[in-house]
């Protein structure tokens, strides 16, 4: 039986590649042939990271937040970190559909990407492993902050929709979700703010190490990789071949407690600690923006009621 009634195209379609890159590859091949060296297959399509020009390594992108964007939800928030756009709505605390008794509220999170959220191929409507993973991480980061014991026999659902992904989706999702929960009036110990940093291999060093090739890895101690840590990476920085690893920290700033640290990739001890430190500072800054936003939205609500 057909369960999914969405419209699909019977013809398989594809996204054309960029002609500029193709031309560059052709020229490189020609050069290689002229020099009569062994032709190296041109496979790399990911461009090297451009150095940040409009902001320093420890600077955020511009952040815009707004609460109360969805009229039908108990609480909602929209957050925009330059091109990363995320909307979140909270339903509940509402009565659970099952009649079973439990002493604290059930809390569930779901994160979805819009099919057009990422560059390249469209994202499937069905939940992917990546979305599931992000949902679980999101839940883990926030659940510690909510006073679930205050709402027995209820459920609280958080739904996050990623409209445009340009890096830092989890950061945006955590921030949006805690703003939305605050907007819904759910009791929390503190709002959770999140921040991410990325460790990147420095350009000049990477060119040198490319020549030595992977065969030399076994001889002696591994060459020390010079790296720099960037705050708030974009999608291009996240997915580039030069990125060594990524750290995401979720924190309750006024309690000074960390709710979640996610570290991926291969990072040295010092790099990880530096990355976490940078994120913790970033969390505090994001928190102050969140607080400001909530206060101003509350002021607006109050003045509207007085009118």
């Amino acid at each position, binding site marked *: 039986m057909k369960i999914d009634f969405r419209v699909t195209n019977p*013809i398989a379609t594809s996204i054309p590649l*960029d002609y500029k890159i193709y031309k560059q590859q052709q020229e490189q091949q020609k050069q290689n042939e002229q020099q009569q060296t062994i032709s190296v297959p041109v496979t790399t399509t990911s461009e090297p990271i451009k150095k940040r020009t409009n902001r320093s390594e420890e600077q955020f992108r511009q952040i815009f937040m707004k609460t109360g964007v969805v009229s039908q939800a108990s609480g909602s928030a929209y957050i925009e970190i330059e091109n990363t756009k995320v909307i979140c709505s909270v339903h509940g605390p509402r009565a659970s559909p099952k009649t079973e008794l439990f002493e604290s509220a059930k809390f569930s999170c779901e994160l979805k990407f819009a099919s057009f959220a990422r560059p390249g191929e469209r994202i499937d409507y069905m939940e992917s492993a990546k979305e599931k993973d992000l949902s679980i991480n999101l839940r883990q980061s926030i659940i510690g902050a909510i006073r679930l014991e205050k709402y027995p026999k209820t459920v609280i659902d958080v739904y996050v929709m990623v409209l*445009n992904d340009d890096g830092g989706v989890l950061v945006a999702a955590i921030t949006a979700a805690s703003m939305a929960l605050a907007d819904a009036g759910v009791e929390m110990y503190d709002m959770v703010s999140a921040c991410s940093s990325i460790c990147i291999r420095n350009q000049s060093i990477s060119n040198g190490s490319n020549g030595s090739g992977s065969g030399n890895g076994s001889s002696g101690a591994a060459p020390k990789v010079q790296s720099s840590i960037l705050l708030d990476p974009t999608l291009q920085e996240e997915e580039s071949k030069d990125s060594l690893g990524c750290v995401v920290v979720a924190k309750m700033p006024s309690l000074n407690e960390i709710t979640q640290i996610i570290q991926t990739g291969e990072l040295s001890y010092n790099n990880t600690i530096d990355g976490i430190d940078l994120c913790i500072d970033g969390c505090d800054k994001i928190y102050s923006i969140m607080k400001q936003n909530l206060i101003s939205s509350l002021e607006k609500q109050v003045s509207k009621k007085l009118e």
Partner: protein
Amino acid sequence: MEAFQKVHPLEFYKKFLERSVRPDGRGLDCFRKINISTGSIMTTDGSSFVKIGNTSVIAGVKAEVALTPTQSDNSISSNNNNNNNKMFVNVEMGPICSNIFSSSKPSEKAMSLCSQLNSLVNRLEINDKELYFDDQGKYSWYLYIDLYCLDYNGNLMDACVLAIMSALKNVKLPKGIVVESSASEAPQLFKDTEQPMRSLNIGTYLIPQTFVLLNDYLLTDPSLEEEKLSSGTISITFNDRFEICTLLYTGITSISEKILEQCLEKTKKRSTEIINLIDNCCTTINNSNNNNNI
């Protein structure tokens, strides 16, 4: 007052409608403010965001390429009714927009809306040549239009039609290059990013308008509560020559011819305003290439 509204919503509405006004302060013929902004999603080939009152819909268009089906292909798979389609519309009404929807599978409302919009898109009179990838038309662009409802407060049909219209107006297609390689391999397709992009020529405008019947009163641009209480919904879509593209009535009571004529007349009156709205949003955004906040 609030208790009365919750317990006897229909009576509550009657009290207002007798005085030709609605609880939210609108007159019976008044529609909510429409906001359209385009080009806010960078990962799409064209996007738009439409807000009618609190109802908001975001649309994104992704373009992909495939061989243009030939006549012989058509006859083989003729049972597939959307064979010649080059545009595919999908509507998602997830739990984000309202707590009445679940995330597991598309709701029935989304499905019916989806099929209506898919047939409407073919009424847009976009020439086949507009979607040619190369000059000869051997390959063509296929447009996938995805609509996400972000806030459901009634009258989704109008919001979706406007979102499709403005998103398609916002579409920018790059010039295609076909590189024929050796005979056995399939030719490679590339887009030329150095040359200027072209936008689609859309032959006509779609002017949607939804009405609701509540206690024999005809209400324009219904909110969610009015849709819930109503005894019937009339959806009309005109093109810019005032030909009817869709006319849909669903409800538990029958309607008289007079009411239908009234609806058609009201939709006609509003057409120039809607056309201006769509045109304006596309021209202003092109000039200032900023991010648009919801």
